[in-house]
């Protein structure tokens, strides 16, 4: 094995990439931006990866002066620059309009408060269905499955205004975002609502509504529909995601 005074270029490039990735992971963790991308249950894995990266960097340090026998092209390392560019440069120039900008205080505490894991309990308060973050998904499942059982019942639910082209006049969807694993699988779930003054509502406005559960005939099937009786404007919650498990 030849040891020279010259720095091995390939090892140096690998070092820089690993340091960049570790630093990027650390920054997303520290600033809690990670909450936009990932389910809280996966966040410890980011810590583990930082550990593995650090060990790799340490191991590469011992090889920095080892000679490289042949000249090789380092083009394949270019692809590793992509996540760093997208991770570091873009979030500063663009603030996501659709997603929450996370608070910058104690990340650990925030996270434990944030994880609203839904349990599958359905209870009615008197004759009214009161839906909160904890029972949201189970109620959505139940109401979509057994719509006829709940016809005419009072319902209280929060969400944001979401419109789809197939909706009728005066209708909108009171939606929530559901994250199972990461932001790539986020989907909108919610209830169809009818409201006479629908035109005045802005998209993505958060609302708390009270209404009566009915039914609407949409192309292939019948879907539940909430006829709104009262509504209250709300500010966007700190974390708008719901986590099914």
């Amino acid at each position, binding site marked *: *094995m030849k040891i020279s005074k010259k720095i091995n270029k390939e090892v140096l490039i*690998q070092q820089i*990439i*690993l340091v960049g990735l570790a630093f990027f*992971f650390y920054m997303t963790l520290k600033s809690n931006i*990670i909450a*936009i*991308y*990932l389910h809280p249950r*996966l966040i410890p*894995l*980011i810590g*583990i*990866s930082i550990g*593995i*990266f650090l*060990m*790799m960097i*340490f*191991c*590469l340090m*011992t*090889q920095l002066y*080892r000679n*490289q*026998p042949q000249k*090789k092209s380092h083009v*394949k*390392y270019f*692809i*590793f620059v*992509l*996540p760093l560019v*997208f*991770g570091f440069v*873009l*979030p500063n120039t*663009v603030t*996501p*309009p659709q*997603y929450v900008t996370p608070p910058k205080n104690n990340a650990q505490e925030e996270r434990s408060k944030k994880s609203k894991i839904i349990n*599958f309990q359905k209870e009615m308060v008197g004759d009214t269905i009161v839906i909160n973050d904890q029972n949201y998904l*189970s109620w959505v*499942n139940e109401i*979509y*499955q057994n719509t006829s059982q709940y016809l005419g019942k009072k319902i209280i639910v929060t969400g944001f205004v979401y419109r*789809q*082209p197939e909706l009728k006049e005066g209708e909108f969807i009171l939606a929530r975002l*559901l994250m*199972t*694993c*990461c*932001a*790539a*699988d986020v*989907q909108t779930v919610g209830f169809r609502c009818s409201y006479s003054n629908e035109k005045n509502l802005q998209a993505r406005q958060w609302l708390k509504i009270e209404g009566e559960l009915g039914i609407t005939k949409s192309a*292939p*099937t019948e879907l539940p529909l909430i006829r709104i009786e009262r509504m209250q404007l709300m500010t966007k919650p700190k974390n708008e995601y719901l986590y*099914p*498990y």
Partner: protein
Amino acid sequence: MKTNFKNEDWVLLVRNIKKTVKLLIVIGLIIILQEPLTQKYVLSKLDFFNIIFMSILLEALPFLLIGIMISAIIGKFVSSEYLIKFLENKKHNQVWSYVIALLAGGVFPVCDCAIIPIVGRLIKKGVPPSLAITFMLAAPFTNPIVIIATFLAFPYNPDYAVWRIFLGLSIALIIGLVIRFFVKEKDVLKEEKQQAHHHHTGCTCCAEKSGKKETICQETRQALNWWQQSRQNIIDIFNHAIKEFFNVGGYLIMGAFFSGMLQVLIPRSSIMDFRGNGFISLLIMMATAFFFSICSTSDAFVAKSFAYSFSYQAIMGFLILSPMLDLKNLMILLATFKKGFVFKLVCLISSISLIVVSLFSLII
């Protein structure tokens, strides 16, 4: 000589043309981006793409790293002689080795992208490709997290989860058997570059390549005390992991990149245009599973969002194909296996799952 000069002139000219074209494109883009409306549109698209790309990456990279570490540890501590001996013992009853390959995923609960480096390592250590591929395809279906997620996503139709396990395992077994009897190639793994290997210090993996080195290595090994030995072991493991990370990681990044692009270009609502009961809807659902590259632990919930518009059979196709094959996995497969083998594997997985799901819908 003269022709040579001419050639170089041509090359120069072509290069210049390429340069001017690139320059024109950049200038054009800058002019277009001056328009505030397009600016807003591009930024919102870019923003959406960024979120998808980063989240797939942040979700898959830790799992890939863990898979690479396990693979490196297997490479260091499980000797190929032992592994082959173990499998040969079972040879009187080959059925058992396939049963183990099918169910091993339940004990070894790693995600579908972490499993590929591990499987590559097992094949390198002498496990027959048919068995290793069976293990690779079956692992996501027996993964407890995947099973629980499927039950939670369809609380009113538990049969989705049950059929998913049953059909998934049978497809894995069929593909394993097809590879065993019809795919004759011995070395399915991508060849490693020698130079890249040799710059590591006293790495014992070199011992596998030449017998002479082995004796030298072992002599030097014995001279080391326990502390030095374990330190050397850890350094060896990480050196292997680094090499594998820079091989596979790039492919993962590319997979996440393309997947993000596709999710931006093809909105989910446009998939709804193909809803219905026919064969086309099954194909569309399977294509969606491939291109969206959603982790097998969460794809059941995405499938649910289609369940109101697509048929039972189409949703089943999504649930079956998504853990076995998607864009992100295909990229990692290409980093580990030879191109020809990956091509055969992709053909096998897509055709057999299509046939099995179609047969299933005839029965149900």
